[in-house]
């Protein structure tokens, strides 16, 4: 067991899998000699060479579309989109092609591939280097969407994603790359897709989050503990397929639910969680299903005062907990 950063865990996951399975290739912008703008693929090109670590032109649709074809013909591509904000040119390939290939061919074809992308704000990235894009893709059956919050989960879920038989979008909050550390075992392990984790037990309400918000939810829960509020925290880890049972079990136990997400509030992923809880745990609820989320501006503004205004943080979540607990 060793203490690793979030990005070290991801890099290790990639290296370990590429050593295990020579059909795995990595492709994207600057993933080669440079090792990626965040260094997630650092060292891969030196070890695996040009054929398995491919620097692409600035062509996101090609990165994804070529990965689909490569997956059809026996490779396991792990594509990197440099920032999640730039995934939109590939939207058609992901939604019209990757997501539907198995379904539309009645299981004749599939495209086992992973598309990694750093997302999220709080790093002075402004409108085009801060976006949370998960809701665009969690809406689409056929795609799996994974957002790990710890180094342990990042490595274990990345392994599972690479070995999965369907396309997986793997979003990594860029603020966590070097700020989050955690224990990562030396040996091989995986974390299954589609399983949430209760990361803190509590009795009065359930806080549901993922990615950076899973950490902020824990911080918020600790802040309100002294005030006599017992909050349970659920880290979703995989957004689709959703582990509905873990979510519903927790809410049925506590009777209250606060959903936290960094993306714009309206129509965000947390809206679906809220709907499921309202629909399937209605008789257990002692208060409204509530949300703490980003404001409904098109994207994160740059100036630090404005960015702080945009970002969900532990104090905003703690305030949400206090209000809901008092309801």
């Amino acid at each position, binding site marked *: 067991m060793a203490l690793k950063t979030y990005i070290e865990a991801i890099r290790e996951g990639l290296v370990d899998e590429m050593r295990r399975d020579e059909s795995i290739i990595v492709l994207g912008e600057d993933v080669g000699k440079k090792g990626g703008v965040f260094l997630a693929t650092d060292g891969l090109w030196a070890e695996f060479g040009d054929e398995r670590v491919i620097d692409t032109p600035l062509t996101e*649709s090609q990165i994804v579309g*070529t990965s689909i*074809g*490569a997956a059809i*013909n026996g490779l396991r591509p792990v594509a990197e989109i440099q920032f999640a904000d730039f995934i939109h040119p590939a939207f058609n390939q992901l939604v019209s092609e990757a997501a539907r290939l198995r379904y539309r*061919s009645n299981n004749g074809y599939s495209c086992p591939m992973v598309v990694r992308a750093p997302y999220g704000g709080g790093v002075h990235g402004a409108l085009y280097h801060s976006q949370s894009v998960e809701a665009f893709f969690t809406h689409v059956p056929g795609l799996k969407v994974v957002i790990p919050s710890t180094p342990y989960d990042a490595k274990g879920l990345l392994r599972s994603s690479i070995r999965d*038989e369907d396309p997986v979008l793997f979003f990594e909050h860029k603020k966590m790359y070097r700020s989050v550390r955690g224990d990562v075992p030396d040996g091989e392990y995986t974390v299954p897709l589609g399983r949430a984790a209760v990361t803190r037990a509590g009795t009065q309400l359930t806080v549901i989050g993922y990615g950076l918000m899973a950490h902020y939810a824990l911080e918020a829960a600790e802040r309100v503990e002294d005030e006599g509020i017992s909050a349970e925290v659920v880290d979703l880890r995989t957004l689709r397929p959703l582990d*509905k049972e873990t979510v519903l079990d927790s809410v049925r136990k506590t009777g209250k639910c606060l959903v936290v997400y960094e993306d714009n509030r309206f129509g965000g992923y947390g809206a679906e969680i809220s709907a499921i809880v309202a629909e399937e745990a209605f008789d257990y609820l002692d208060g409204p299903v509530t949300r703490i989320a980003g404001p409904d501006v098109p994207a994160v503004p740059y100036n630090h005062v404005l960015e702080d205004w945009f970002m969900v943080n532990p104090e905003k979540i703690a305030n949400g907990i206090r209000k809901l607990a008092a309801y």
Partner: protein
Amino acid sequence: MAVPDRNLQHPGAAVGLSVDDLVEMYRLVALTRALDERMWVLNRAGQIPFVISGQGHEGAQVAITWPLRKQHDWVAPYYRSIATCLTFGMHPRDIMTAQYATASDPSSGGRQMPGHYGSHEHNLISVSSPVATQLLHAVGIALAAKVRKTDQVAMTFMGEGSSNQGDVHEGLNFAAIHKLPFVFVVENNGYAISVPAAKELSVEDVATRASGYGMPGVVVDGSDVLACYAAARDAVDRARSGGGPTLIEAKVTRLTAHSSDDQQTKYRSEEELAAEKQRDPLPRFRAQLSDAGVLTDEIEQRLAADIKAAVEDATDYAESQPDPDPATAMRWVYAEEWPSETPPAWGMGEAGGHGAAGGHGETS
């Protein structure tokens, strides 16, 4: 008058095709035409709701697909690729079950519109409706072929209208950079539904663009089957031997409306449509082979009977096949079933209204 020796001086000899090859190529062109015409009859009779066809494209499709190795190489077809699909191994029944969207339709099990062919068994990639996306899949297949050293070639087909999509630019650039075993075929019929080529392209030939990517671009007469074959053979040889991709543009004619939902006389004159019939590859190829003595009356009569029987069989078979069962419609979203993704009973629109179908509040 001397009868030409059909085994020595036939028109395929110059491009390395045998007499048997020529007869089989002709059969495929004629079979595709007959199937295609049957599809329109069925549509007009109210049997199938939609037809999109390839009449006028068949000669180019058969000839360009011909040099590929079946069940080894790969094809990413498009919605007019009926002749390509038949040449690459699909059966007339496979084409017709797609028109009827039966459960047994190998392309999609009745999930897709007619014209969206695909066959895992034959390395024919499933067609979608957004145009040109398949080019990137073929490029990816070619990338995998190069990385895995499988000696495979990937070929994709589309119209000149689709060739303007951004995915084409991104894919050709990447294929040329990596010298991938890839062939890009543009079937230029002069129209993107109703928009004429002059409003789609600022150049006469799509093939002109190839040089901008650093690959050869070849223009061939799409009604000249043997010229199409020669161009494709060269491109496939170049791809397989590590010489990189080629763009082949076949100038074809679209003998029908864009689809059964289109009325082409609104934008094409009667004179134009009459003139275009002169570019039909089927009578031209038939005359070429007859004149050379390759296609004797006896052979032609046999082929005509075979084709008629094949079309009848495909139609009867497809008509007899059951619709897909709605109980299977949730299958193959993913490789596995995810029970946790199942909505509550009322979420599926069952009769009885909210909460009536199994909610825990059900007491009566």
